[in-house]
């Protein structure tokens, strides 16, 4: 059935009272509204903001916001640098779209973001790999600048896996990783707490937004 994305008008309650003929149209509207709730409103999402150190030789440590200038500082330590983002999925979560805010410094080295999906058995960071994932690289998928002067402060850019990839290539193959696409959650792991492991190179993450992908049509 098609899944409506909006809060549509519901049938009048009086239409369901005693002595009224139960109309299929009313029940269709009820079914449609419930599908909107299950497959649209209650899709999972998580919005991670990354707090970074605010110290600068220029202004010290006033602790004034994550950033004073319109950029993010790319520390020299951000090489094969890892984050583990925890995400509580839902029973109908099939694919996860990622939208990332970053600043990249081309002069610091090759720029990339890798994202893979793991389970969280035993709370471990090294749980079983569910999707070996994807890699964003520059200049194909990421914008990076050459900024002289050591630890650069490039402007924010956005990277996105998209939601509507034509096909999922190799969720269980490590080399080469797929180009950006939504991550795939095996049916056995839906509804579990998942770990999206992100590895960055010469790049500072500012935010990562995680979304269950809305499917316009489902089989019920």
């Amino acid at each position, binding site marked *: 059935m098609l899944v409506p*994305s*909006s*809060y*549509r*008008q*519901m049938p009048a*309650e009086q*239409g*369901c*009272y*005693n002595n*009224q003929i*139960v109309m299929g149209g009313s*029940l*269709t509207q*009820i*079914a449609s*509204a*419930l599908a909107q*709730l*299950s497959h*649209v*409103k*209650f899709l999972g*999402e*998580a*919005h*991670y*903001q*990354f*707090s970074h*150190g*605010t*110290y600068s030789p220029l202004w010290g*440590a*006033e*602790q*004034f*916001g*994550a*950033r*004073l*200038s319109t*950029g*993010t500082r790319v520390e020299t330590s951000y090489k094969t640098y890892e984050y*583990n983002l*925890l*995400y*509580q999925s839902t029973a109908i979560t099939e694919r996860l779209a990622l939208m990332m805010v970053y600043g990249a410094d081309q002069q610091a080295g090759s720029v990339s973001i890798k994202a893979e999906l793991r389970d969280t058995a*035993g*709370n471990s*960071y090294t749980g079983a790999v569910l999707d070996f994932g994807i890699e964003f690289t520059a200049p194909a998928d990421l914008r990076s600048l050459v900024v002289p002067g050591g630890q650069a402060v490039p402007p*924010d850019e956005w990277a996105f896996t998209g*939601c*509507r990839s034509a096909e999922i290539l190799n969720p269980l193959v490590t080399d080469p990783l797929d180009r950006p696409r939504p991550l795939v959650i095996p049916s056995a792991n839906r509804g579990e707490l998942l770990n999206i492991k992100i590895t960055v190179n010469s790049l500072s*993450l*500012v*935010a990562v*937004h995680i979304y269950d992908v*809305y499917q316009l049509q489902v089989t019920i």
Partner: protein
Amino acid sequence: MTAGLTIRSTEMARLADLQNYLYATGGTHNVVSQMFDDSCCIQDSTSYVQMAQWRIPIISAEHTVLNINVQGFCPGAANGTVKFDLTVGASNVIVEISITDGGRYTSAFNSGTITISGSTVETGILRMSAKAPTGSQLTLLGVQANWQAPASPLSTGALSQGSHSFIPQGQTRQGADEPLPARFGVEALRNINTLRRRQRVLFCWSGIEGASSTSPISAAAAPPRAIGRGDLSSFYSPSAIFAGTIENDLTVKCYIKALNYSAAFSILIMGNVLTISAGGWSDFTLDLIQDELDVSDQFALSMYMAGVDTGNLNINGVASPTYPPSTTGYVASIAIIGV
């Protein structure tokens, strides 16, 4: 299920099941998501220091268990400890979580739960405090929290969600030999209207207070406490707000925590000028007046910027270097909670 065709009991049972499922599981994904980098959330005090706080939705009176997962590390044999306390109405419940890793992402994250009494209050305040063992430092890397779905079957009788109620659907009442009563239609409509009001976290952020470290400040303990001018270009979540929200009298709310308050100040959020006229938490109902984002095409949903705007009011106000948090009132935490 189509107009003009026979209504089978199978479909009725599924609709009843789906209502129960939605009440139990709807909105049980992340309510808190935040990462801390560059040792900016670090503590060397051996007694608890409050470091962050978030406003979170209480999604129903039956969702009473909050799962909290913390990532961090503490070099040496002894463990650091993180304390979370959740204030809901007049009650306050605490959990302490021991941080077991000795290095950054060495092995495992740590978990705890807070169990509250069922409440019809719409939001609660989750505070995070931390302490280190003597002679060491506790570095926190990230926090995630979500409500745990209640077990099946749901409790009988009317269940609360804020000031609204939900009537669970008994499976034996939808069988083939039972009449299709007026009750089913009326309750289904009311249940849908209740579930449409269930809150979703669109944006959630806390500044960091009280960080301390034996490391030089150039390497640690220089966390963001307030919003910075540089944050504004991306300090929002692209979030779906569904058509029909306004027509169904549903609202998006913004909760702001002000610290060091001395005089009223304003902030621009989702096109709304919000004036903060007291210290502590203030809440606002937002007018939905923004334009859709281009990325709506990809999501096939109406996506909007849920967060802090880039307008001049913010550039020259709350995010201006002229108003540092050490001398003026500032925004220490923001939550935007929609439906």
